[in-house]
């Protein structure tokens, strides 16, 4: 008994010391594709006395864990279908929104987002987004990261093609020296469907945009331009009116008019509207009520709440117009197997998990494409895509990994092209519990990560630093808002203020 007393003294001292100041301790969760980056970040955090460790997950599992609030710091990325923060920053950071895995909540930001997603006054929207960005930067709900560029490569025999920010592949004006056929190696494992109402992913959209037209079309850098709609006007705050191009026919000769446009939106907006199944695309349209025909060449979109014109036009780029008479006559199954559109190319044949072939639409309203055919080859493995380009089997490949760019650029006859990306990459911090319910700790993490070195060394410079999850290509981006600099001393100071030991 007497001897045990001596043991109690150091034990008490240890307990006292640890209660007084302990190291900031947490697990950084990353999906398998970002494990290199995760290791670099953990090493940087450890260097300033943070007891960080890394855990690697399958992304779907990690996402579910985050939504359940079981994780404290997780690397995430989120893509944007609009060139507007509407479907990136808003779902990520609005209180209780679908993508808000950090459980961040700010009245200032919520109000700014409300204005930005409902006001029909562009300057009010821009001002609201500016307020939101400033507040988000100060609150540091996330460790803000970067946006990756789209890296694609082509044979030098290809002309009139460039990669697009939204992964579109526009071949209307493309030519290939010595051939009337172009082969592109896609990054995807398989296309999902040929029905423009039944998919969600980019790769499918990139393909379908070649056989269907939409009311508006994005340029490679995301500006909306007239396409099947030649002009539009605001009828009242809830109603937009569109004039349709009068000379458009589908490739089976059927005239494309207001009935087809209304039919296209009806089948997407009606629950179970596609042979009992619902379209997963309805959410992309915003708070829409319905589409209505005014006359053969005029349609109106009616909204339930006010929705900014820029967002309406952005949304419309994603909705390919389908032929009402053909679908009504042959049914959804036949249409899905043999789709008819009004786009620059006509679907010829193929298998969605192997290769699909499209051929020039000689009667396209905007002129026939110069190529006779385009073959879309599914090539999910990046090394195979590159080998195939080098072997001359394909002329364009998607998604070149940054670490293989150097090897490819040194090969004569092949060029690497880049476009702005539309995905924001960050580390989501759980704002609802310790340690990240303390703004100082979140700011400290932002100062403690040397993103520039990560972007240079791991992503070989094919990534751009972000101050917040607002993308430079999006509406209302604050050009002059500087990201948190790498400042380990400042990070340590903030951690000390928050009561952590940093030695």
């Amino acid at each position: 008994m007497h001897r045990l007393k001596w043991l109690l003294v150091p034990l008490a001292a240890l307990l006292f010391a640890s209660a007084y100041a302990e190291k900031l301790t947490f697990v950084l969760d990353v999906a398998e594709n970002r494990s290199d980056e995760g290791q670099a970040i953990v090493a940087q955090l450890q260097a300033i006395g943070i007891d960080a460790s890394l855990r690697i997950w399958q992304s779907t599992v990690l996402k579910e864990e985050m939504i359940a609030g079981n994780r404290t710091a997780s690397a995430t990325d989120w893509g944007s279908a609009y060139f507007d923060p509407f479907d990136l920053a808003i779902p990520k950071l609005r209180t209780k929104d679908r993508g808000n895995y950090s459980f961040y909540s700010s009245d200032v930001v919520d109000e700014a987002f409300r204005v930005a997603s409902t006001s029909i006054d562009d300057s009010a929207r821009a001002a609201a987004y500016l307020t939101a960005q400033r507040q988000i930067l100060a609150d540091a709900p996330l460790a803000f990261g970067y946006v990756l560029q789209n890296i694609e490569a082509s044979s030098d025999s290809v002309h009139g093609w460039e990669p697009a920010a939204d992964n579109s592949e526009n071949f209307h004006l493309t030519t290939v020296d010595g051939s009337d056929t172009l082969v592109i190696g896609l990054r995807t494992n398989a296309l999902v469907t040929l029905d423009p109402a039944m998919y969600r992913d980019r790769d499918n959209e990139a393909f379908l945009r070649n056989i269907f037209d939409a009311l508006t079309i994005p340029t490679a850098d995301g500006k909306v331009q007239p396409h099947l709609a030649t002009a539009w006007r605001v009828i009242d705050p809830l109603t937009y009116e569109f004039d349709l191009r009068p000379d458009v026919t589908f490739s089976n000769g059927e005239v494309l008019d207001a009935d087809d446009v209304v039919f296209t939106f009806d089948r997407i907006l009606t629950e179970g509207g596609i042979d009992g199944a619902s379209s997963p695309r309805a959410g992309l349209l915003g708070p829409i009520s319905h589409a209505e025909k005014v006359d053969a060449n005029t349609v109106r979109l009616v909204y339930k709440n006010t929705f900014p014109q820029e967002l309406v036009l952005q949304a419309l780029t994603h909705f390919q117009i389908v032929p009402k008479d053909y679908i009504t006559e042959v049914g959804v199954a036949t249409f899905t197997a043999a789709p008819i559109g009004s786009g620059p190319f006509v679907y010829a044949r193929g298998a969605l998990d192997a290769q699909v072939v499209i051929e020039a639409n000689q009667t396209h309203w905007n002129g026939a494409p110069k190529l006779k055919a385009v073959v879309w080859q599914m090539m999910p493995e990046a090394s195979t895509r590159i080998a195939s380009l080098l072997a001359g089997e394909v002329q364009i490949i998607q998604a070149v990994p940054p670490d293989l760019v150097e090897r490819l650029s040194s090969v004569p006859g092949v060029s690497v092209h880049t476009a702005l990306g539309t995905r924001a990459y960050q580390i989501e911090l759980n704002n609802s519990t310790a340690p990240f319910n303390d703004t100082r700790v979140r700011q400290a993490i932002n100062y403690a990560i040397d993103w520039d070195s990560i972007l240079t060394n791991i992503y070989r410079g094919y990534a751009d630093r972000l101050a917040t999850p607002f993308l430079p290509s999006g509406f209302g981006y604050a050009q002059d808002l500087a990201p948190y600099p790498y400042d380990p001393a400042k990070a340590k100071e903030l951690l000390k203020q928050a009561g952590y030991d940093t030695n």
Partner: protein
Amino acid sequence: MRLTKLLERVLSAIPVAIGVAVLAFMFLRFLPGDPVEIMLGETQVTQQQIDSLRNQLNLDKPLITQLALFLAGVLRGDLGVSFVKNAPVVKLIADTLPATIELTMATVLVAILIALPVGIISALRAGSIVDRSVLSGALVGVSMPAFWFGLLLILLFAVELKLFPTSGRIAATMVVDRTTGFMLIDTLLAKDLRAFGVALKHLVLPAITLGVVFAAVLARVIRASMLEVLSKDFVTTARAKGLREWSVIIKHALRNALIPALTVTGLQFGELLGGNMIVETIFAWPGLGRLVVSSIFARDYVVVQAAVMLYALTYVAANLVVDALYTLLNPRISL
């Protein structure tokens, strides 16, 4: 007698398939990840849209109801409709299975062509330099990652030497009508010999990638069982009768030595028919492996359940065929 035994074995596969189906169903549901969440992607979605989709896919029903619905479907021969692709699972599997079977056949052929002579020679020259290099070669073959080996073959034979195409089943610009789904058969049915040749060339590199690894296993099995058989009395007797050496080896020794090799081949065949996700991905081979793995990632339960059932049945069938072949090789073995 034999026929009833065979029928018995076939019928016994049914409870196995159902048991596996129930297990697959349960395991998938325990796997974290929500198919609806994945399907809707990163769009702005209302809770009502999420609920409605969940309802359509029956995912809002209690687990036991979902299981009952699934089993009722299986008994009716209806395996369901893929969540993601909105197409009947039977069609998705029927579309991808021929590509996998074709690759499997070619793989087994490559493996046998390598393993049989190598295994026999190595047994006949046991302990020699040839034998030892075969054994170490086999070790390398077994240890080699298919991913690495496949890419190596592509870089050497497709990019540098341009002898074979890098990937796919047929040239991008060739049109082959799909009748059976087997590219070699379809090109022949279309009487297009050039396309047949091209399809054959596409088959070479992936078949070698998978075949070499399998050959390494098989060669060791053949070597070991040949060694055992060669020391048996009946081989000595055959030699004493003055039979030619090749006749002793092929007719007397090999026939008996093949039984273990057949077992290994049968099991491997079953495994290969599941599709090899890695090799199918590297060679952009549109087979079952890629379908199943992408369905697992998308939590497309319906597809994975059906595939797991198919796997179980394939194994049962492969075993049955192997057992039947035993009886041919050795009449003393019965089913």
